[in-house]
């Protein structure tokens, strides 16, 4: 039994031209939304930067859940690896932001390699439980290694040098936001290429039927492991961005809570299209921010109600609502021989 829905149509891989047009339009939309965020909420840029960092985490999770059918409740392990690596590097004198992002990506990728090696030994629920155990172990390890990570007090006291030598990561957070937005767009474009590559199609095949893929003569494990590494790199960049923009790394960045939240955001937005990951992150965090500012005492109830409502109204996630409005085409509905 697979953890992941078989029923939801993955974004259709249409004719090459339509493909480009659609992704181009999507990219323009993201940029427009990013710019709108910059102009409309100039006073909330730190929040928006945080949204971007988490969006990278959720994107990385979509690569695993949405494209490979590997469910994880431990994705924050990869995010945290990137965040701590960037923080520690910065504390030891590597302060150039681009380099820090690269360090985060490498650390995340390494963590992804380890995590994938363990998690891919199991399927379904057992896999989910492995991911939980891994993130808990990582959390403990980060807490224990307080000489390097600052433990529960957090890793603080580092400051990245200005971007390109001129733009400071300052109070208003313009640099951090634009830097993050640029990073997100670049990562998004790269991932669009990845999922459209032969490798991406192969992954989607594995998600639906690994037996079939094997009988086509392709190995499953190395392919999934490769996706774990890519996913780790993306999550690691998210973590590094968080570290650079906040200048603190806390234990929360390797927590089960963050992992669970990122999965909730992904399912909320819809799996397997990359857009869903962005939509889910923005809606969840925006909702949380607004509701908790209005009434901090009741935001949990509100968020809970939102999640229930989404399941009842839009089981495919909010991103899926759009495609549901188009003429519905029935696929194999969750059946699996």
């Amino acid at each position, binding site marked *: 039994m697979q953890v992941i829905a*078989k029923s939801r*149509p*993955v974004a*259709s*891989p249409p*004719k*090459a031209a339509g493909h480009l047009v659609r992704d181009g339009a999507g990219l323009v939309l993201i940029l427009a939304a990013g710019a709108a965020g910059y102009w409309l909420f100039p006073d909330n840029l730190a929040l928006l930067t945080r949204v971007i960092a988490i969006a990278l985490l959720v994107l990385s999770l979509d690569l695993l859940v949405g494209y490979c059918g590997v469910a994880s409740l431990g994705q924050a392990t990869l995010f945290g690896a990137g965040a701590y690596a960037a923080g520690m590097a910065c504390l030891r004198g590597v302060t150039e932001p681009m380099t820090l992002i690269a360090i985060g990506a490498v650390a995340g990728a390494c963590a992804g390699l380890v995590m994938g090696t363990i998690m891919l030994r199991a399927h379904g629920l057992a896999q989910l439980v492995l991911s939980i155990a891994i993130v808990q172990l990582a959390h403990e390890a980060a807490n224990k290694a307080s000489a390097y990570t600052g433990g529960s007090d957090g890793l603080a006291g580092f400051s990245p040098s200005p971007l390109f030598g001129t733009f400071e990561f300052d109070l208003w957070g313009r640099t951090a936001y634009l830097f993050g937005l640029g990073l997100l767009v670049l990562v998004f474009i790269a991932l669009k*290429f*990845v999922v*459209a*590559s*032969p*490798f*991406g*199609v*192969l992954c*989607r*095949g594995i998600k*639906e*039927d690994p*037996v*079939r893929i*094997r*009988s*086509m*003569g*392709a*190995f499953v494990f*190395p*392919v999934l492991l*490769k996706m774990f590494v*890519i996913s780790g790199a993306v999550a690691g960049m998210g973590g590094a961005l968080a570290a650079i923009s906040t200048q603190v790394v806390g234990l929360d960045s390797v927590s089960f809570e963050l992992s669970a939240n990122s999965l909730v955001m992904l399912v909320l937005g819809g799996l397997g299209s990359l857009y869903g990951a962005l939509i889910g992150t923005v809606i969840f965090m925006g909702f949380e921010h607004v509701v908790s500012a209005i009434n901090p005492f009741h935001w949990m109830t509100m968020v809970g109600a939102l999640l229930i409502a989404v399941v009842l109204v839009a089981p495919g996630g909010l991103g899926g609502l759009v495609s549901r409005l188009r003429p519905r*085409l*029935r*696929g*194999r509905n969750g059946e699996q*021989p």
Partner: protein
Amino acid sequence: MSELFRVEGLSKSFGGLAVSREIDLAMNAGDRLALIGPNGAGKTTFVNLVTGQLRPSSGRVVLNGEDVTGLGAVRRVRKGLVRTFQVTRLFSDLTPEEHVTLTVLQRLGRATRIIGRFRGDAEVSAEVESLLRTLGLLDVARRKVGEIAYGQQRLLEIAIALALKPKVLLLDEPAAGVPSTETPRIEQALEHLPPSLAVLMIEHDMDLVFRFARRVVVLAAGEIIFEGLPSDVAANEKVREAYLGNYAHARRVA
């Protein structure tokens, strides 16, 4: 030289239940062999054993003179031992063109590439197109598999298998579940399989078997009980027993 494929003493039991017993079988290039037998005779198990989805309890599988018993399913496919499935196992969100492209890319060792687009290589496209044309799938090439007719899905199964350039092809009931109006197209496709290919087909439809096969093997209760010309099958006492005995001695066989 002429022998391409052989199984020797292939046995498999689940718990105490033997589902395959000491099966010996050999095939040459260009063979057209039909494997028939009553329900539960262990035909699909046999295919699973040969292709490596199941590990045999004992026995060997030899391909092109090489013992492949120890190899996994993937390696066997790469060595030219390819199968189709009794129930279509296709990706409902991909198009036939994408299925075949993915398979061709896999064969060329390019399916795991991250750099480069899925489509775009002229040579690959040409091969895909020619395969789809051979099987009459060109007009549905860009529709999602979930939307095309079941007969077409069966043809796509064959197309995928052929895209792997197999030496030995195991067809697990290629016409199963296909409405009779669509069977001729499948028959046609089977007739046009590459002549050098060794084909083993499991099938219930005896018309199809007689038209296609030059040799028939009958499997009953995990054992080969007949091997010979299609024209001799019906007359064989053991075969009659195996098929009809089900009714005559239902209790004993069960």
